[in-house]
């Protein structure tokens, strides 16, 4: 099996998770649950993160291959390269930037925003209430 064929399976799995996240967000909108605090993956943020991640991958994958951390069977890769990095390697970055935000939005959100600045949320306060933030002044604002 070639590297691209392998990637196809894993990218398909990623696509299914993304689809689930979109469907969940859509049904939440339909239900118009006033307590909902999540509208699904923000694809504009995904796109910008993807650009940054692909550039980072291009740089560091070349370094990693250049210093000999990993090597490839030339018979199983397409032969398309970015520098010395096989194009197939970029599937990891694409998968990460679609899969992980989708998973994030599929999981139930923590009940409320944290009330202190530097600690992980402890779930105090009213569950899912998206009202004005009390700890960031007017910037938080009521959710539209």
């Amino acid at each position, binding site marked *: *099996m*070639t*590297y691209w064929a*392998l990637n196809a*399976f*894993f990218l398909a*799995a990623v696509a299914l998770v993304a689809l689930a996240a979109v469907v969940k967000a859509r049904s939440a909108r339909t239900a118009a649950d006033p307590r909902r*605090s*999540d509208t699904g*993956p*923000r694809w*504009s*943020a*995904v796109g*910008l*993160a993807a650009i*940054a*991640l692909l550039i*980072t991958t291009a740089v560091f994958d070349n370094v990693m*291959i250049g*210093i*000999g*951390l*990993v*090597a*490839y*069977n030339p018979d*199983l*890769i397409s032969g398309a390269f970015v520098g010395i990095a096989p194009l197939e390697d970029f599937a*990891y*970055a694409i*998968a*990460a*930037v679609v*899969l*992980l*935000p989708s*998973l*994030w*939005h599929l*999981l*139930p*959100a*923590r009940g409320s*925003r*944290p009330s202190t*600045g*530097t*600690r*992980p*949320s402890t779930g105090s306060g009213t569950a899912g209430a998206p009202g004005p*933030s009390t700890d*960031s002044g007017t*910037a*938080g*604002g009521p*959710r*539209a």
Partner: protein
Amino acid sequence: MGLLYLAALLVSLTGMVVLDRRFQLYFWADARRAAVVSAVGVVFFVVWDLFGIGLGIFFRGETAFMTGLQVAPELPLEELFFLALLVYVTMNLYGAFGRLLAPAVSKRGVGA
């Protein structure tokens, strides 16, 4: 020499933690969700790696920069930290861009 790559990964991961904490991007936005996403993400990519190794597509290089410890044949210990870094970088970026793009909607959390 053998610790160089691992050390670089740990330094990078530390940087991600610092950014996360400073801007509440990922674990500091919702620790429970971040833990689940990270665990699922790393396992997903490890399985991907194992298939690639098992199919003979890629393998560990000959280098003095790694410890030589392997968690599975041709799967260096360092790869686990690399995949954790990939996950952390991705979610910090997503959290940061989500915040920048919609500052009036949510000042906190990964696109929450």
